[in-house]
């Protein structure tokens, strides 16, 4: 079954039907070699993907590179798009994969840097946050201290408000792995926050 017929048969639940129909037409045109159709898809979803990728970096240049990477990867994977879910869901999955890969590479580079430096500098987050931007900066600073897997789980739990089952499905992990990572990550997060004077309470 082609992507087009698959999309038409399952529908585009959850998406605006006009943009859904446009997606179907553009994907089909794109699969027939029309690159302008893909340009329209990029334009349509660039903003949403940028919002998602902003969770992975606070640097505008890197943000732009990550968004580009998502769309290039999506283009090369487009023949494999079965249309079982809306195009945006499929795109978001690729975006998560790209972001996660970026974090893993970053963590490896950080590890090498720390081995070289011997005395890594601790990130001291500033708690006097007032604006959304400061809050974002601060949260990113905290999450940056976690390993990529744990960071991913917390990002999806708190920012996207997904369940552990949804995270497991999306990332291709088992639900128990997600739970273990969430537990460890929350524990570390709590220690970091308490260390900075935020509450001394009990339960995780």
């Amino acid at each position, binding site marked *: 079954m082609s992507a087009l017929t698959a999309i038409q048969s399952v529908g585009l639940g959850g998406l605006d039907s006009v943009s859904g129909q446009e997606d179907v037409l553009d994907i089909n045109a794109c699969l027939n070699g029309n*690159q302008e159709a*893909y*340009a329209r898809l*990029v*334009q349509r979803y*660039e903003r949403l993907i*940028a*919002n998602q990728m*902003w969770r992975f970096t606070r640097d*505008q240049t890197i*943000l*732009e590179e990550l*968004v*580009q990477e998502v*769309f*290039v990867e999506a*283009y*090369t994977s487009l023949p494999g798009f079965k249309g079982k879910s809306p195009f945006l869901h499929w795109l978001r999955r690729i975006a998560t994969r790209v972001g996660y890969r970026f974090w893993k590479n970053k963590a490896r580079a950080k590890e090498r840097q720390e081995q070289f430096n011997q005395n890594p500098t601790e990130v001291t987050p500033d*708690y*006097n*946050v*007032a604006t*959304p*931007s400061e*809050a*974002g900066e*601060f*949260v990113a600073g*905290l999450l940056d201290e976690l390993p990529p897997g744990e960071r991913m789980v917390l990002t999806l739990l*708190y*920012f996207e408000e997904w369940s552990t089952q949804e995270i497991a499905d999306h990332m291709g992990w088992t639900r128990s792995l997600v739970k273990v990572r969430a537990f460890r990550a*929350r524990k570390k*997060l*709590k220690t970091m*926050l*308490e260390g900075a004077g*935020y*509450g*001394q*309470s009990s*339960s*995780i």
Partner: protein
Amino acid sequence: MANHPPSDPLKTFENLVRQANRESVPEINAMPEVMRRIRQETGLIRERPLIWMTAGSALAAVAVMIFAIPAASSLLDPLSALMQNNPMSMF
């Protein structure tokens, strides 16, 4: 919020995330670069058979040269046949 944080640090974190979610993300324009990279990649894919053909032709040319150069040099040198048959006969 910073002055009176909740006693549970994770509640504080949740509040911070809620606040961070209201942040406006910088404007980007990824489309031109995406299309440039796609054209570049599809161009490479389209040219791949030509690249293989060029490489194959180059290999064939090298093989021909390996056999052709000694053959040609022996044809051009009238003494070589004589030398190969009996190099000492000249003395």
